């Protein structure tokens, strides 16, 4: 037990927490853009999965991280465009579409994996996205800052906050999620903003998947392991506000880091119970035991 405690109160542990926060925050922030525009996107999991897979594939075939990144984001955008056409233009139920996309993407990646690599479990090894070398030498937090996507996530907290609450674009996007009927009468192209929301969510969650596959250095089936849903949970607990979502992601990343520390120490604490925590806390928050939470007023309502 003492070993676990001393492991938890160390710089290495905190560094770990910040790094593990990355995919959660990218997914959650993505989901937030979509929901702020009034489209519930429960296929964050699928979008992360698709990007993780396509990044690995393009890495293997092109060998260039920049090309792989671009192509991977592009393929995610194409799927997001389909998602938005179904949910926004055709007004199909967003939850059902989300479930459908998760199943479709899971099937697609499994199929392509066998087709391309003759393996149902994992791809060959890849190099991940490169770090930012000169930031490595910063004392204590160099490890956190030099990870490109972790740094990006931390900046995103402020950028997304600014974008959503301080710009005309943000105001219009939010109006599409709060009261699309009123927004339309003011001449705002509500549907266009819903498209933007979905597209942004696919790009950000894609980066989350790319972080994971870069860390693991290959793609394996089922590697997202529910992180897309934890991201949704973080968005809810964070009450659809960028900074609060960030805190929620740090909390969940803390649980994950704790789980890893416990597994390494071999302490006799069941890790499954820690795995439950993010989901349980979310339910408690929704029920109103821990603070009040309110989604955008027209969230999930087809317009």
């Amino acid at each position, binding site marked *: 037990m003492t070993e676990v405690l001393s492991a938890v109160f160390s710089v290495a542990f905190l560094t770990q927490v910040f790094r593990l926060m990355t995919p959660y925050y990218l997914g959650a922030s993505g989901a937030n853009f979509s929901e702020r525009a009034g489209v*519930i996107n*429960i296929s964050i999991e699928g979008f992360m999965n698709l990007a993780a897979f396509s990044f690995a594939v393009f890495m293997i075939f092109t060998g260039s991280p920049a090309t792989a990144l671009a192509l991977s984001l592009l393929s995610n955008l194409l799927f997001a465009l*389909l998602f938005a056409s*179904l949910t926004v233009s*055709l*007004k*199909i*139920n967003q*939850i*059902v*579409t989300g*479930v*459908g*996309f*998760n*199943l*479709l*993407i*899971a*099937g*697609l990646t*499994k*199929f392509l*994996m*066998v*087709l391309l690599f003759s393996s*149902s479990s994992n791809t060959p090894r890849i190099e991940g996205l490169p770090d930012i070398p000169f930031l490595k030498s910063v004392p204590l937090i160099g490890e956190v800052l030099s990870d490109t996507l972790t740094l990006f996530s931390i900046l995103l907290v402020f950028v997304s906050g600014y974008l959503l609450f301080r710009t005309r674009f943000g105001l219009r996007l939010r109006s599409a999620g709060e009261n699309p009927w009123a927004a339309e009468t003011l001449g705002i192209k509500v549907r266009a903003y819903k498209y933007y929301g979905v597209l942004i969510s696919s790009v950000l969650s894609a980066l989350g998947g790319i972080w994971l596959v870069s860390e693991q250095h290959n793609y394996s089936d089922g590697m997202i392991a*529910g992180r897309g*849903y934890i991201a*949704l*949970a973080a968005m*809810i607990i964070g009450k659809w506000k960028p900074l609060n979502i960030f805190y929620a992601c740090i909390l969940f990343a803390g649980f994950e880091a704790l789980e890893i520390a416990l597994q390494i120490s071999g302490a006799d604490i*069941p890790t*499954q*119970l820690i*795995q*439950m925590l*993010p*989901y*349980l806390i*979310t*339910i408690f928050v*929704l*029920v*109103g035991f821990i603070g009040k939470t309110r989604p955008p007023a027209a969230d*999930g309502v087809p317009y």
Partner: protein
Amino acid sequence: MLSLAFTFALLVTLITVIGKDPFDVFLLIYSDVFASGYGAGQTLFKATPLIFISCGLAICFHASIFNIGAEGQLNAGSFVMALTAVSLEGLPFALQLLLSVLAGFLAAGLTGLIPALIKVKKGVSEVITTIMMNFVILALVNYLMVDFFAVKSTLRTVSIQESSLLTKASAVFPFFEGSSLNISFVLAILTALAVYVIIYKTTFGYKLRAVGFNETASKYLGINVNKVLLVSFFAGAGITALAGVNFIFGYKGYYELGFSNNIGFTAIAVSLLARNNPIGIIFSSLLFAALDYGGLAVNQVVPKEVMLLVQGLIIISILASDSLVKNFYRKKGAV
């Protein structure tokens, strides 16, 4: 139908693109799934849990309850069902079966009752709560299994006695030789018929559909909306546990972690494909089961995962074609 044709066309293109003859592939599926007793048996066997779960979901969907939590509910139910079955060993078989099924039904139903209560009391949408419940239940069952109930160094519970297994179809019809098809398929058909009658031919079913169609109007008609929501959520979730009958009593004799393999999500598509009509669900379950087993049949020519892709495509194209057809008629002023 339009969506199936679309998916079929896409599949043909896909197979051609990867350089195989689509005709060969379909011939393989045909000869394996329909022309062999083993294949047909396996297809029916795989359809069994889908029918149960989709029927449970259909009840929820008719009441406009978006139950995404079948995966958790059916695992909670099957886990409890297996434990009850083992602890009741020695009782007459019929009693053991009945009590185990009841226990499983209750466990799954209670799992569904939690999001139902949160919805009714707090007005929180069941979508997120059921998704979260899935993870909570799976982690909880995982914990209970690993720390208490699993046979050492496996992920399964103790088996029930050989004599407590349901009759295999091959025992009656030698045609199905070797397949795992068992009498729970008949139970699944009966369940579908019963759910059909409940939804379309009873007062409760009428109320259920009324609430699903327009909650506010139902309230003014004097329907106790909350009661209808709670009962249908409980019953719908409970029925998903019956999938465990096929696996535990009909096949393996024990509960195993991961046996459900996301079938709780596939069932959502199966139910939607049939427009939540239980009789239709029998057929859409058979289609998905044929795709599932057909994948194994074509594995040497095309990776069997192609069928997962097809299932996904079917879902998306149903959604799209439904809406396109509706829009088409709306523009013509017919609806």
